[in-house]
């Protein structure tokens, strides 16, 4: 889902750039687009953004539809919004006879009222909140670990004489050369032996291992860009290497760390195959849970859409919060120091 979200903010920023640039100067600089070309480029970007946004808008709209509206054909574009999808997402319900519901007396809350319209009563909370919390713990936990370990490794590879440095870096890269899912079965068996199946610790470990190669390689690039003179100046001034790292290098790696963290989080947050294979009762994350929310007579599409909408939020918020760092991080050395 977030894969679909990724192009949208990116194209958003691209379309903002021409608007922000300085007022028109004449004559044109070489390489600068003329007014007509800029208009056309803007149109193209906006058009692309609209196409990229369609699935998101669709999901968001569906989450506010009633179940009949959600499967209506032709699709309902104008509809009466309801929170039923969200209520269904967070509750489990049982069908009851009209007489039984009558005997319960008037509903106490707005969501109970909503449920009773369909001749149902709430029997308890659903497991969605648990699954969501698992995603948060596993996603952010593995991101933190991958970035933390990646930063240390990247610094060491960048600054110290590590024996077989190039071979080690290649080895780290090679762990990503085949799709992780190719080793799913051995990992499944190992995890079962080690008691890591269906545990948050196991999933954090797995996602950290998968993300670490990306993290080390990305961050090493960022450390390489920071001139050694910075640390040497601090060391000559009487700081230890560790203090120099903390006071001088780390603050300058902020952009790189932010960019790396987002990439790691997006992977861990969206990962589906391993989550499906290795988790079930305890440590299941949201991705394998959301698509199997069953309503009456099949999938409960509004609840699925509601779950997806809520699932999108953390990555969007995380990305928006770090967008300045991210922009600098992704453009690498292009921005003047």
């Amino acid at each position: 889902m977030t894969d679909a979200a990724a192009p949208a903010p990116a194209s958003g920023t691209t379309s903002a750039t021409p608007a922000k640039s300085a007022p028109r100067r004449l004559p044109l600089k070489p390489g600068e687009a003329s007014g007509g070309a800029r208009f056309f480029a803007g149109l193209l970007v906006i058009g692309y953004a609209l196409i990229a946004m369609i699935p998101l808008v669709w999901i968001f709209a569906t989450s506010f539809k009633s179940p009949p509206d959600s499967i209506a054909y032709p699709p309902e574009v104008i509809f009466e919004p309801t929170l039923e999808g969200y209520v269904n997402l967070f509750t489990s319900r049982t069908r009851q006879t009209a007489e039984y519901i009558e005997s319960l007396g008037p509903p106490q809350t707005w969501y109970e009222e909503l449920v009773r319209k369909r001749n149902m009563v709430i029997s308890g909370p659903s497991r969605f909140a648990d699954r969501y919390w698992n995603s948060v713990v596993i996603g952010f936990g593995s991101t933190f670990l991958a970035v933390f370990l990646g930063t240390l490794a990247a610094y060491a590879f960048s600054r110290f004489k590590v024996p077989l440095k190039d071979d080690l870096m290649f080895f780290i890269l090679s762990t990503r050369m085949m799709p992780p899912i190719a080793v799913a079965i051995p990992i499944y068996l190992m995890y079962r032996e080690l008691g890591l199946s269906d545990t948050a610790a196991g999933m954090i470990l797995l996602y950290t291992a998968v993300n670490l190669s990306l993290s080390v390689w990305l961050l090493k690039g960022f450390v390489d860009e920071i001139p050694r003179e910075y640390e040497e100046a601090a060391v000559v001034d009487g700081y230890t290497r560790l203090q120099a790292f903390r006071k001088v290098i780390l603050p300058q790696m902020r952009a790189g760390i932010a960019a790396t963290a987002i990439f790691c989080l997006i992977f861990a947050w969206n990962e589906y195959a391993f989550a499906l294979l290795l988790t079930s009762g305890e440590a299941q994350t949201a991705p394998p849970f959301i698509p199997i929310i069953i309503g009456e007579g099949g999938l409960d599409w509004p609840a699925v859409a509601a779950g997806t909408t809520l699932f999108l939020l953390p990555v969007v918020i995380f990305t928006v919060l770090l967008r300045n760092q991210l922009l600098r991080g992704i453009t690498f050395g292009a921005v003047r120091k």
Partner: protein
Amino acid sequence: MAEATLEAVTKSFGETTAIDGVDIRVADGEFLVLLGPTGAGKTTTLRLFAGLETPDTGRVTIGGVDVTRMPPGARDVAFVFQQYSLYPHYSVYENLAFPLRAPGRRQPEAEVRRRVTEIAEMLRIGHKLKNRATQLSGGEMQRVSIGRALVRAPNLFLMDEPLSSLDAKLREDLRVELKRIQRDLGATIVYVTHDQLEAMTLADRIGILDAGRLVQLDAPRTIYERPATVYAAQRLGSPQINLIPAGSLGTAPAAPACVTAGVRPEDVRVGTEGGEAARVIAVEHLGAETVALLEVAEGRHVHALLDPEHRIAEGAETRVAVRPGAPVWFDRDNRLVSI
């Protein structure tokens, strides 16, 4: 302030020998400039003083103490880098205060403020203290860099081409300022440059480096007048010294060993009686003086420095001679022949 020495120091990086048996003694309060082209070992020499490199053999001392195995922080030296040494995430004030907040050298905040303000005033950046380091112009950045070395009053200042990234006018201003500060503080400075003008104007003594060896270490004037080798002769003076085979242009070798005459352009006489026929190839009018390039024989060129009154046209035929007694003589191995 203190004296500092390198004693028979050698340093290699893999196959390359960066420093080859160098002996340098910097006197207390001396401004020593190391001059040489890229790759001559200037920066490595500085880094050996600072402790950023450890010598393979030999000793480093500062203030009479053997610091060969001492880490940089314990040596109490200050290093000014060519660029990059300001921390972009700190303000100017924080950059200047950084050395005073180092563990083991930590000063009370009031003292830090006093020192930083004083140094900032001295370098005329007092009004910029609150700025981010990245908001400064090149000249201001380099002042802050120098200021960061000055706040601590270390034993020894090490400066690695601190002015080379600046434009000509700024470089000149800062050069004068740097010399004034050094004199006021009585600071001991080892200064690296490849700019001969900087070397001539700043140095008490110049050390000429060639491929990791110290060729000559003397006062600028001595090196100019009595260069130890052809290489040293070519490092100072613009245009470069003329190298003339013994006997031509009226030069008379003083000893059998004399093979090449080194003649400064100001000692070449143009348009005189005698001498050899020459053709004027190029004339550069520089205001106070005029530089002429002359072709003496097939493919042999001579630079001459002329008075501004001396009118001469490109393509003209003239006669060239060397002022008697002017040449310095070099032997077959390009070494100075002492007479």
